[in-house]
């Protein structure tokens, strides 16, 4: 374990091999050198980070350890409200979102000793799959300049890949943690709906929103998720279930774990390089003791459509004010998406919510009777060139973004936990990734599978050069 990973850095600080101030200064040096290209930050908080680091350093010297993340620098998607920093949500309005309270998940990480480096770039209002942003700059892919970093938690993923911070918080309404994780070659986990409190984070769709960690390894994500998860009086949808020791269970291996490769939907129309990469990962997992078989799924298109309808209706309800009062401040793509939501009838919306319950129950019952984990691609095509996205009309752009998120969105509908894990590179040098999906609240198995795979495959030992 080296100090480039969150786990290694936390251990290094605890062993006094590196101080919190040194950790922050290392991150700042990389940010100063490369963020003019990547645009991972909307607001870098150098002073705040150094002040916090000095305080944590004094605490460490006195033997006062605040928690498992003592001195570890993190970044927060700019829809997490934290006192002292504005929350733009990727819009041009610095204080678009003013929460009554802080983002519970972010606050828990800070209370566990983490240091905030600032607020991270994202697609406007978290509505978009590519990480483009006309107000704050398009987030660039750390592995191949000029290519999409994925969205909407674009700065979170690109910044982790670039070593700007050891981990980041993202949100995922249709794939917004897993898509950028897949594009940038990092680990991202969308936990079960309700596993992590959504309090203090901008709402896009209260039925579909999930918060989760992005990090370099499954171990790093496990450490963050343990801190972030758990009941929260500020969020009635947060589960009261106990939170397992995810990191403590990582070394158990995957012998006998039943992995299902979908026969339908998930490999249809997917780039050959991506499909081959995921199947190769499945073979490696089989070599590590898993039992891999093909499985026919209840048609995921139904849940995809239902989830999209619910998201559109709720997003328009939540963001109606800016649409009506300051439409010129929104990018045309965001405006167009919100416009559609206003036309959805109450009948269709409520039927969609009822259908979601039925489809979820059927999916859980039918699929997890046969397998423990589903393995799919995360994205259907390699991260596109940013220039190519600019030539599309609004309708073309939104249709393409819809296709780009079609492999992740079904699990926002079903609320099932899903992790994105890097599994190689395309010939052009862009990351490949797989998505593993588990039973409700079985994040522990997904993290263990990801960890076991990473230790064997070793892709996480490569870093982008950025030059």
């Amino acid at each position: 374990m080296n100090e480039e990973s969150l786990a290694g850095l936390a251990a290094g600080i605890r062993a006094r091999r590196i101080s919190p101030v040194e950790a922050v200064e290392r991150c700042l040096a990389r940010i100063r050198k490369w963020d003019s290209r990547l645009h991972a930050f909307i607001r870098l908080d150098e002073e705040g980070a150094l002040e916090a680091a000095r305080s944590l350093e004094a605490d460490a010297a006195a033997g006062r350890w605040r928690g498992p993340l003592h001195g570890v620098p993190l970044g927060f998607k700019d829809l997490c409200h934290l006192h002292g920093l504005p929350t733009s949500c990727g819009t041009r309005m610095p204080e678009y979102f003013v929460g009554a309270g802080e983002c519970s998940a972010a606050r828990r990480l800070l209370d566990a000793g983490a240091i905030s480096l600032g607020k991270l770039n994202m697609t406007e209002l978290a509505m978009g799959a590519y990480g483009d942003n006309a107000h704050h700059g398009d987030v660039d892919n750390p592995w191949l300049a000029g290519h999409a970093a994925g969205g909407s938690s674009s700065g979170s993923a690109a910044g982790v890949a670039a070593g700007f911070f050891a981990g980041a918080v993202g949100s995922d309404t249709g794939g917004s943690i897993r898509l950028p994780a897949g594009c940038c070659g990092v680990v991202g986990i969308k936990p079960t709906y309700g596993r992590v409190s959504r309090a203090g984070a901008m709402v896009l769709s209260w039925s579909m929103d999930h918060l989760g960690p992005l990090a370099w390894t499954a171990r790093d994500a496990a450490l963050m998720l343990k801190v972030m998860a758990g009941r929260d009086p500020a969020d009635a949808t947060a589960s009261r279930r106990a939170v397992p020791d995810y990191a403590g269970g990582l070394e158990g291996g995957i012998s006998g774990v039943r992995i299902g490769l979908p026969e339908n939907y998930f490999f249809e129309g997917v780039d050959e390089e991506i499909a081959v990469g995921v199947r190769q990962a499945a073979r490696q997992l089989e070599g590590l003791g898993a039992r891999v078989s093909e499985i026919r799924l209840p048609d995921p298109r139904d849940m995809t459509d239902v989830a999209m309808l619910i998201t559109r209706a709720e997003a328009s309800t939540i963001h109606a004010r800016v649409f009506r009062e300051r439409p010129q401040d929104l990018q045309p793509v965001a405006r167009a998406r919100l416009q559609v939501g206003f036309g959805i009838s109450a009948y269709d919306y409520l039927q969609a919510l009822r259908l979601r319950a039925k489809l979820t129950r059927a999916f859980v019952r039918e699929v997890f009777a046969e397998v423990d984990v589903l393995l799919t691609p995360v994205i259907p095509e390699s991260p596109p060139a940013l220039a190519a996205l600019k030539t599309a009309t609004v309708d073309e752009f939104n249709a393409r973004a819809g296709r780009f998120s079609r492999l992740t969105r079904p699990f926002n509908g079903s609320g099932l936990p899903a992790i994105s894990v890097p599994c190689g590179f395309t010939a052009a040098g862009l990351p490949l990734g797989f998505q593993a999906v588990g039973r409700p609240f079985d994040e522990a198995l997904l993290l263990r599978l990801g960890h076991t795979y990473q230790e064997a495959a070793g892709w996480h030992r490569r870093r982008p050069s950025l030059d």
Partner: protein
Amino acid sequence: MTESRQHQVELANMAGIIERLAGELALGEEPARFIAALEGLPEDEVEDEDEAPRDE
């Protein structure tokens, strides 16, 4: 296609999807059962869809 025409097409498509799927819903189906599905309420606490009366 104009923007408003495109939106009308999208709305019609979404309504068509709901129309196609909603006929299969049991009367007892309600949104809160989504949480029950995740939290793992026992199957016998969940209405049997095959025997339940339909909405329409």
